[in-house]
C-alpha cells in the first residue's frame, strides 16, 4: 500500500512539473500573440520603420536577421560538423582530446556578451571587417560552434559501432565507412542540433550589439561590410530605449512575435528535413 502511495505521489509530482512548464509556455505565447498580433500586417512585414520608428514596419530587421544568420550558418555548420567528425571518428581519445572536448562544452556556457566583446576585438578591430554583417555573423558563428559540435558529436555517437566495423570488414577505407555508413545515419541528428544552435544565434542581441547591428537604417545592407538591423536588437531598442513608449509598445510585441515565428519556422524546417532524411536512409 505504501509503495502505491509513493508511486502515485511521484507520478503526480512529475505530471505537475510538466503542466507548470506547459502553462508558462502557453501564457508566454498568449501574451505575445495577443499583444503583438494586432501589429502584424503586410505593411509591418514589408516596410521600413518610419517617423522615428513609431510607424511603419520591420522589413530591414527581418532581412538583417536573415542575412546575418546565413553568414553564421556558413561558418558554423560545416566547421561544427567537420570538427565533430574529426573528434568522434578520427582523433585518438587521449587526455588532450578530453581537454578539448571539455573546453568546447564550457564554451557553450560562456555568456553571449563575452562573445560580443571578443568579436569586436577580433573581427572588427584586428581583422578590420568593421561593424558589419560579416563581423556580426562570424561572432554569432563562434557562439554557435560549441553547440553544433556537441550536438553533431552526440549524433555520431548514436550510430552503432557495428556499422563502422561491418564496412571496414568489407574492405572499406575509414573515410568510406564514415561517409557511406555513418554520416547518413547521423545527419538528421546533426542537422537538428545545428539548426537549434542557429535559431538560438538568430535570437541573440548582445553579440551583435557591438559588431554590426544598427539602431535604425532606412535601407537594406548592400554588402557584407554594411551595417544592418536585426529583430532581437530592434526589439531591445523598442522595449527599452525608445522615448515614445506607449506608441511603440505594440510594434515591439509585433517584432517579438515575428522573431518567435521565424525561429519556429526554422525548427519546422529541421523537423521536415529529418523526416525526409529518415525515409531516404531506409531504402
Amino acid at each position: 500500500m505504501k509503495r502505491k502511495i509513493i508511486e502515485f505521489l511521484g507520478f503526480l509530482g512529475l505530471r505537475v512539473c510538466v503542466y507548470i512548464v506547459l502553462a508558462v509556455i502557453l501564457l508566454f505565447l498568449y501574451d505575445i500573440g495577443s499583444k503583438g498580433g494586432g501589429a502584424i500586417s503586410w505593411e509591418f512585414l514589408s516596410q521600413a520603420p518610419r517617423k522615428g520608428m513609431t510607424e511603419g514596419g520591420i522589413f530591414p530587421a527581418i532581412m538583417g536577421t536573415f542575412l546575418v544568420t546565413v553568414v553564421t550558418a556558413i561558418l558554423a555548420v560545416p566547421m561544427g560538423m567537420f570538427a565533430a567528425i574529426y573528434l568522434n571518428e578520427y582523433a585518438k581519445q587521449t587526455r588532450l582530446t578530453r581537454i578539448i572536448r571539455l573546453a568546447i562544452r564550457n564554451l557553450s556556457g560562456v555568456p553571449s556578451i563575452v562573445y560580443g566583446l571578443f568579436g569586436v576585438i577580433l573581427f572588427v578591430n584586428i581583422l578590420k571587417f568593421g561593424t558589419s554583417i560579416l563581423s556580426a555573423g562570424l561572432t554569432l558563428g563562434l557562439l554557435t560552434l560549441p553547440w553544433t559540435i556537441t550536438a553533431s558529436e552526440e549524433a555520431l555517437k548514436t550510430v552503432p559501432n557495428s556499422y563502422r566495423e561491418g564496412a571496414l570488414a568489407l574492405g572499406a577505407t575509414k573515410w568510406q565507412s564514415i561517409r557511406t555508413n555513418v554520416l547518413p545515419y547521423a545527419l538528421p541528428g546533426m542537422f537538428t542540433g545545428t539548426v537549434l544552435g542557429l535559431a538560438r544565434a538568430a535570437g541573440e542581441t548582445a553579440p551583435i550589439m557591438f559588431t554590426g547591428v544598427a539602431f535604425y537604417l532606412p535601407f537594406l545592407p548592400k554588402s557584407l561590410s554594411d551595417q544592418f538591423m536585426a529583430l532581437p536588437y530592434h526589439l531591445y531598442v523598442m522595449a527599452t530605449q525608445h522615448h515614445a513608449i506607449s506608441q511603440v509598445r505594440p510594434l515591439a510585441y509585433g517584432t517579438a512575435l515575428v522573431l518567435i515565428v521565424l525561429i519556429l519556422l526554422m525548427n519546422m524546417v529541421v523537423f521536415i528535413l529529418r523526416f525526409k532524411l529518415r525515409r531516404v536512409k531506409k531504402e
Partner: protein
Amino acid sequence: MNLETKIETKDLNFYYGNKQALKNINIVCPANRVTAIIGPSGCGKSTFIRTLNRMNDVILNAKIEGEVILDEENIYSPEVDVVKIRRRVGMVFQKPNPFPKSIFNNIAYGLRINGMRNKRNIEEIVEKSLKEAALWDEVNERLRENAFTLSGGQQQRLCIARSLAVEPEVILFDEPCSSIDPIATAKIEDLIQKLKESYTVVIVTHNMQQAARASDFTAFLMLGELIEYGETEKIFTNPKNKLTEDYITGRFG
C-alpha cells in the same frame, strides 16, 4: 595429408594496455579447411580472430607483437595496405549487423565501395552471393525491403552473403551463432561446410558441439594461451592435455 597453409600466426602477443590478452600463439589455418577456436569466456578467442584481419587496429592502446602470415606475407608489416587485407579476409560478427538498408543494398554495399558501378554485374553478384549463403529462396521476392525485417538467423546469413560478395579468400566467423536459435544455427553450420570448398574458414565458438561438428582443426585457448591445437577428431577423442580434456568434458567453462 598435405595441406597448404593459408593463414598462420607466429609468436603472436596481444596487449590491451598493460594486460596481455594473447601469449605466444602459433596456429596454422590450412586452406579450404575449417579451423575452430574454442575456450572459456575471456580466453582471447575473439581477440585472436580479430588479429587475423586487423580489426583490432581500431582499438585504442592495443599493442601487437609477432606475425600473422597470409599467403607468406606478414599482414602487419608496414608496407601492407590494411584495406586490401580486410577485403581478402572477410568477417562475420557475433551479433548479426546488417546495415539499415535494403537486403539488396546490404550486399551491393561492399561491391560499390570497392568501385563496382555496373548495375548488371552488381545484380548478378548479389544473386550469386545470396544463393551461396542459402538465403536466395527466402528473400528473392523482397530484395528491396529493409534488412531489419529479416529474422536473426536470416540476418546472419545476409551478413555472410555480404562478406562473400566481395570474394574474400578467408572468412572469419566470430561466434556467428551465439545470438540465433538452434534451427538457424544448423543452417549456418551446413553453410560453413559448403563454404570451405571455396574458402578458408576460421570460426570462434564457445559451443563445443559446434566445433566438433563443423571444424577440421581445433585450437583450445585458455587465459590467452594456446593449450592444445590439432585435428578436431583427435582433440575431442584423445586430448593430450589435461586442461583440454577437462574443458571438453564440461568440467569447467
